[in-house]
């Protein structure tokens, strides 16, 4: 579309008003990109390329010498039960958060997208945890989840004392407790995105389904759900990527414990690189995490893109 018009401009001199392309090219010069590109190259691209290369060395982060060791670091990951455990935990967190947070977020969005009088207040309150730093929410929940903390006291109060737990100290359930905290903090975030989608659905469509006698479930499944496809895509992408990279809340609440039960790839990368001075190994793990994020979000994007059409 562009090249014939351009050729015309350069070969002939039209007396008519100049072609817009020529004008906009003059007014938007390439060097406007330069400062942004410089920061981006320095902070993201160059270190990512270096990181990829260092994953094949035995660098400890201090010595000048880096020996090429091929795939040794990746083989170490497979033999290291801490690393494989963290990979499993990361996948459980990624899937768990994606499913639960979006389910809760969707139900909340449907709840506040209604005639109820408290809808505006609820929207504001439910989103509030998402703007608080994870360090604060992490410590808050660490206290609430101790054996004599607020959560167990609440369970006693409502007669569910049998469910009392050492929520973060019990290796069998600590990971799920972490997922629960993330859901509490970010369900309102998912809600807001679903809500924006719901508000974009034309009233007439919903009204028509009343006339046709569709029940609430039929109405949701056949009318609302397909129109919410873009909101689903964004929400699922955000939560799976956020879940796979999770660091802050785990680091604050459990530090990866008890006994590695809540270690994620991100906490283990941090430990290996900055506490055990095993940089090459840490970076190899980071590369594996990169592949997970790229493959899982790529596959998800494909599947959802198809569903949306």
């Amino acid at each position, binding site marked *: 579309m562009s090249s014939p018009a351009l050729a015309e401009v350069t070969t002939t001199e039209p007396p008519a008003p100049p072609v817009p392309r020529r004008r906009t090219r003059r007014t938007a010069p390439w060097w406007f990109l330069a400062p942004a590109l410089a920061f981006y190259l*320095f*902070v*993201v691209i160059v270190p990512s390329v270096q990181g990829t290369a260092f994953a094949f060395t035995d660098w400890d982060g201090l010595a000048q010498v880096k020996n090429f060791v091929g795939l040794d670091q990746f083989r170490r990951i497979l033999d290291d039960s801490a690393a494989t455990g963290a990979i499993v935990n990361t996948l459980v967190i990624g899937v768990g958060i994606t499913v639960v947070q979006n389910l809760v977020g969707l139900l909340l969005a449907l709840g506040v997208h209604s005639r*109820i009088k408290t809808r505006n207040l609820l929207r504001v309150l439910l989103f509030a945890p998402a703007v608080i*730093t994870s*360090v604060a929410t992490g*410590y808050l929940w660490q206290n609430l989840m101790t054996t004599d903390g607020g959560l167990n006291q609440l369970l006693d109060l409502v007669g569910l004392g049998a469910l009392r737990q050492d929520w973060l100290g019990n290796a069998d359930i600590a990971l799920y407790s972490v997922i629960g905290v993330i859901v509490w903090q970010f369900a309102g975030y998912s809600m807001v995105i679903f809500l924006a989608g719901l508000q974009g659905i034309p009233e007439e469509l919903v009204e028509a389904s009343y006339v046709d006698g569709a029940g609430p479930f039929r109405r949701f499944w056949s009318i609302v759900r397909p129109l919410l496809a873009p909101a689903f895509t964004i929400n699922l992408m955000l939560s799976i990527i956020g879940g796979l*990279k999770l660091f802050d809340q785990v680091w*604050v609440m459990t530090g990866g414990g008890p006994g590695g039960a809540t270690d994620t790839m991100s906490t283990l990368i941090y430990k290996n690189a900055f506490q055990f001075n095993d940089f090459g190994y840490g*970076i190899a793990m980071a590369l594996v995490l990169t592949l997970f994020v790229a493959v899982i979000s790529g596959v998800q994007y494909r599947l959802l893109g198809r569903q949306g059409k």
Partner: protein
Amino acid sequence: MKRYTWRTAVLELVMVVVGLAFVFPVYVLVNVSLKRPDDQSSDLLPTSAITLRNYADAWQQAGLGGAFVNSAVVTIVSVALIVVLSALAAYPLARVGRAWSRWAFLFFLLGLLLPFQLALIPLYQTIRDVGLLGTVWSLVVVYVGLQMPFSVFLYVGFLRVLPPEYEEAAAIDGAGPLRMFASVVFPLLRPITGTVVILNAIAIWNDFLTPLLYLSGTQQQTLPVALYSFVGQYLQQWNMVFAGLVISIVPILLVYFLMQRSIIQGFASGLKG
């Protein structure tokens, strides 16, 4: 759906209970922060003997004042740079139809896929080698680079649907590129600039991992890191710790409640892109 029926009333009741469940942790937080350490009453019941002593202690022990200033400086400087540089970059990316422009845009989008963990360790080395480690400026550099792809993405998306007539009129009037950008294009970008500011400011203000790495072992701290070391030090004194947590989250919550409409809209519209 238009009228307030008994079904609506049931929904209202359910939603209010859910809302209370979400607020419950914050209620406990505030309640405990107002109790004396020797107060043995339940965390769930409003304490009868309110004290502000914990707040005074937390403020003194945690050094939150300096951390506030650092967080504010880092957030303001980073967001200002991000807004100017990403809007500037988005202008040719959205307006020039040439191949270099399309490739450059895709190159920026690549940054949305790369997890920070991969760049984390080599970047730490580089920042150390150029002598920025332990300064708040290291954070500014990292945030500007890190947030660039997403911000460029938002600006380009907005500019592409903005009609170019205003710029053409200004070009006829003989405005140069910088003048044109500053007085015509940038003011037109105001709505999306609001979104870019909100999303970046909240992400940077709350970030924990970056300052944990780049400021560790120094007196310089941002709020999340100051909070982290404060709590680590006084872990058994929960009343004071909770007062510290309240102090740290009050400013952001205040901004949020004052601007909730535009903040929620900013999140929703920015991520629709």
